[in-house]
C-alpha cells in the first residue's frame, strides 16, 4: 500500500474537479492518503503530485508544513493534549506529565504496542473546557488524570471503536455535490463577465 488505491483515486478525481486549479486539492488528497495508510508515504506524495500536476518536491514542501501529516507510522490513536495558555492555566502540563507516565512514553513517542502516540498540541479551540485533548481529532474536555486513565482503558478495550476511527480518518461524512445540482469549478480563464445574476436586478 502506498499509492492511492482505486477508490481513493476516484475520490481524488472528484475532489480535484471542485477546484479551479487541481493543485488546490493537495491538502484534501494528502488527508486521503493519510486515511488510507495511517500516515503519508513517499509513494502517495509522488502519486498526488501526478494527480494535481505538481512535482513530488512541491507536495513534500506543502505536506511537511502542516502539523497533522505524519510521514512515519504513528499509533492507532494520536493523543493530542493541548498545552497552550488556557489549558496550561488549568493544569495541562501536569496532565501531560501524567499521560507520559501512564503511557510510558515521552511526548512525541509511540507506545510499543503501536496503539498510542502522545503529542503536546497547540490551542484546540476549546479553551473554556480546559484542559482538553483530542484523540484522532475527537475532543475530550476538562480532562482530569482519572478521566485520562479511563479514556486510555476504554480505547485499549475497544469500547470507543465506533466513535473514534483509527488515525488518518478525519470527517466520516464527505461533501457530495449531486450531479445535476453543482455549478462546477469557476476558473479565472473560463469567466468573461459578471455572474448573470449580478445585473442590478433581484435574482428571485
Amino acid at each position, binding site marked *: 500500500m502506498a499509492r492511492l488505491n482505486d477508490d481513493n483515486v476516484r475520490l481524488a478525481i472528484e475532489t480535484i474537479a471542485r477546484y479551479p486549479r487541481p493543485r488546490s486539492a493537495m491538502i484534501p488528497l494528502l488527508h486521503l492518503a493519510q486515511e488510507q495508510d495511517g500516515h503519508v508515504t*513517499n509513494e502517495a*506524495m*509522488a502519486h498526488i503530485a501526478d494527480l494535481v500536476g*505538481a*512535482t*513530488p*518536491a*512541491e*507536495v*513534500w*514542501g506543502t505536506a*511537511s*508544513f*502542516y502539523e497533522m501529516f505524519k510521514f512515519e507510522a504513528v499509533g492507532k490513536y494520536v493523543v493530542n493534549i493541548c498545552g497552550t495558555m488556557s489549558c496550561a492555566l488549568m493544569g495541562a502540563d501536569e496532565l501531560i506529565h501524567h499521560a507520559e507516565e501512564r503511557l510510558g512514553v515521552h511526548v512525541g513517542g509511540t507506545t510499543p504496542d503501536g496503539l498510542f502516540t502522545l503529542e503536546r498540541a497547540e490551542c484546540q479551540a476549546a479553551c473554556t473546557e480546559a484542559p482538553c485533548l483530542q484523540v484522532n481529532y475527537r475532543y475530550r474536555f476538562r480532562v482530569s488524570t482519572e478521566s485520562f486513565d479511563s479514556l486510555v482503558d476504554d480505547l485499549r478495550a475497544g469500547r470507543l471503536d465506533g466513535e473514534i476511527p483509527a488515525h488518518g480518518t478525519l470527517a466520516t461524512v464527505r461533501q457530495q455535490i449531486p450531479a445535476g445540482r453543482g455549478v462546477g469549478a469557476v476558473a479565472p480563464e473560463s469567466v468573461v463577465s459578471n455572474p448573470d445574476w449580478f445585473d442590478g436586478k433581484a435574482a428571485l
Partner: protein
Amino acid sequence: MTTVDAGSEAIPAPESDPNAVSVTINGRTVEAHKGEWIIAAADRAGEYIPRFCYHPRMNSVGMCRQCLVEVEGPRGPMMVVSCMTPVAEGQVVRTDTPQVKRAQEGMIELLLANHPLDCPVCDKGGECPLQDQAFSHGPGESRFVEEKRHYEKPIPISEIVYLDRERCILCDRCTRFADDVAGDALIQFTQRGNNTQVMTFPDEPFASYFSGNTVQICPVGALTAKPFRFKARPWDLEQRESTCTTCSVGCRTVVQSSRDEIVRVQGVDSDPVNWGWLCDRGRFDFQSVNSGDRVLVPLVRRDGALATATWADALDEVATHLRGAGASTAILGGARGTNEDAFMWGRLADALGCTMRDAQLDDGLPAEVLAMPQATIDEACSAATVVLVAPDLKEELPVLHLRLRDAAMKKRIRIIEISAVETALTALAWRSVRCEPGTQPEAVAELLTDAAVMTQLASGSTVVVAGRANLAESASHTMSAVESLLAAAPAASVLPVLRRANVRGALSLGLAPRDGRDAATILHDAAEGRIECLVLLGSDPLSDVPDADLARRALAGARFVVSIDAFLSPSAAHADVVLPAAVAGEKDGTTTNLEGRVTGTAQKVTAPGTARTDWMIAAELAEMLGHDFGVATLVDVRRAMESGAPGWGEATSRLANDVDGVVVRRAPAAAHPVRRTAPGARNSHEFRLVLARKLYDSAIATRTSPALASLAPGAGIAVHPLDLERIGAVAGEPVRVVAGERAVVLPVSVSARVPRGTALSPFNQPGADIRELVRGTGALDVSIEVP
C-alpha cells in the same frame, strides 16, 4: 541596445521614459520608473540598501526583511521593505535613520543567530553577502548564546550541487529560481518555522539544467558546486569578462582563474541576453579546458600512425597539401572559434580559391535562414506571437528557453508550437501542434486556416524561432514551413536556432557554403574521392554528422585530412595532421550569437603545450602559401575586418566597454534557394524517428568535464506507452531498431511526450549509435522489434 546593420549606419536606441517619477532618497532627488521597487531605484542612484532575498531578475518575496527603509507616510515614517514597495511620485525614502540602522543590525544578528560562522572553511568566504553585510550593516557581535540548529553537513542534492542547511538563511532565492525561473520545482522549502529547510524530495535529486545558477545566487555558502569546492579562495581569483561559447545564445560570463587554471565561470547580467543566468553545461564545461586529454603538440601521420611533430614540420606538410589541392580543398567547421578565426580562415579559403566550406555539419538549418528577416531575443520575448518550429529549446539553447519561458509565464507573448514531440515549452504554449516529422509545411498550412490563429498573427509582431528539431529528417521541411509562416504573418522575422556558439559569425564571415555546396555535398564529394584536402576546423564529422556512414566514407575518401582541434576527436584520430588549437578561455576575440550579437571572449589562461589560435594558423599557412595578409596580432586581424567584414570591424572596436555587445546583421554570401525533399510515404507499422539533441551528450567538452560527463542520458529510444504495449516491449530492456537492412540495439523507454507512431531518440549519446540508421533522406521510418 545598439544595432549595426552591416553596411548601413547605426540605429540609435530611443531612450526616454514616459513613466518617470521622481523620488527623494536620503535627501537626494532621483529619477525612477513607475512601478519599479524602491531598492532598484536606490541601486541606480548609488544608495545601496542591504538585501538577501531580493534579486533583480526574480519576483520579489520580501521575506528576509533586511532591506527595510523608512518611507514618509501620512502618519509619520513607515517601515517598508524596499524590495517590494514601488516608487511613487514625490515619495520620501530614508535608508539611514537610526531606526533603519537598528532594524538592519537586528536582522543581521538574527540571521547570524543560527549560522555556523564556519567562514574559514566555506567556499563563499570572501565573497559572501552575509559576511560582507554583517561587516557593513551588522551589530558587530552576537548575543546569541543558545545551541545552534544542527543539520547533517553538506549533502549532495544532485550530481553537481551540495547543500549545507546550517549555512542557509532561507532567502528563497534558490527555490524561487528553480520554481519560477527554471520551471524545475525540485528543491523546496520543507518543514516550518525555525525548522524550515531547503530540501529535495527523497531520492529525487535536483537534476536541473540550471542548478549552477542557484549556487551563484545563494547569498551564503549553503549551495556549493562540486567543480569549485575547495578549489580556490575567492580573493585569490583573477577574472575577466567573456562570453560563453557552449551554444549560440552567447551568455555573458566572467571567467575566473587561479594560478593559470580556470576554476569557475559565473553568469554576468546582460539585459538583452542572459539576465545573469547560465545553463550547467555552459557553466561547468570549462573543466574540459583543464583536461589531461588535450592535444598539446602537432601530430603528423607517419607510417600509418600519428606521431608528434614540430609546428614547422606540421604546417609545412599542411601547406604542401593545400598548395596541391587548391580549389579542391574543403573546409568544414569554424563555428566553435571566434569571429577572428572564421574571418582569417575565410580569407585563406578565398586565397586558395576554395568554394567548399561550411561551418555546419549538415546538422542545422541551411545558411539561407540567415537571409530571412532576423529577430533578436528581446524582439522574440516581446513579440505578440512566437512560433516555434524548433527543437526543444531547453535541450539546445537553454537560456533562450528561460527567456521565452519568462515571457510566456508573464503573458507577454503567446507561443504557437509546431513539434513532433512535446517540449519543455508545450505546457506554456497557447497552441501546440503535434506534427509527424516531415509534415511541418502541412501542419503550418492547416494552422493558417484557423481563424483564431490568423487573428493572433495579425495582432502584432511575430517571431519564428526556427531550428533543426530532427536530425533524421531533411532540414527542408522546416525551411518551407518557416517560409509559409513568414508569408502569412505580416512583418514576421526569424530567430534561428543555431547549435554551436559561432555558427552565425562563421557563416557570415566567410565560412558559408557557396552555390549550395554545403557540408552534405562536400561529404559526398569526399566519399567519392573528389576532395584533395579536407580541413576540419574544430569539427568532428564522425560524431556530429547525422549520417554516420556518410561521414565515415568521407573521411576515408578525402586524400588528405587536417584537423585543427583541442582534442583527438574520433575524426581527428583519422586525420593526417592534427594541429593543437587553443579554446575558449585561452584566446581573446569576439563571437556572434544567434541573433547576430557580437560580444567579446577573453583569454584568461595560457593555452597548454603549443596550442595556437585558429586565426594564427590560417595566417601562417597563408604566408607559407605566399599570401601575406599582413596580420601578426589580433589588432591586425580586427583592422583587416574593418574593411573585409563590414559591421564586425566596427563592432569589435566598440566592445571593450559594452557588456551587451553590438548586433551586426549580414546575410551570408550567395544565399541558395531551398529545395524540398519529400518525406516519403510511410508504413503504418513503423515509427517515424525523431533524432533530437539533449543538453548533455558525447560532445567532447562535455565528455571531458568530470562534473558533466555522467549526465548524458545515454543512447535509447522512447515511444508512447501504448506503442510500447503494442510492440510487446518492456521499458528499460533492449530492442532492435531497424531501417531497411540496417539495425541497432538500444534500450527502450516510454514517454507520454512522444505521440503514437513516433519514436524519439537522443543524438550523439554514449552507447549504440542510432546514426547508423540515418541516410540523409526526407524522413526516417524505423520498426522496433523485441529481440
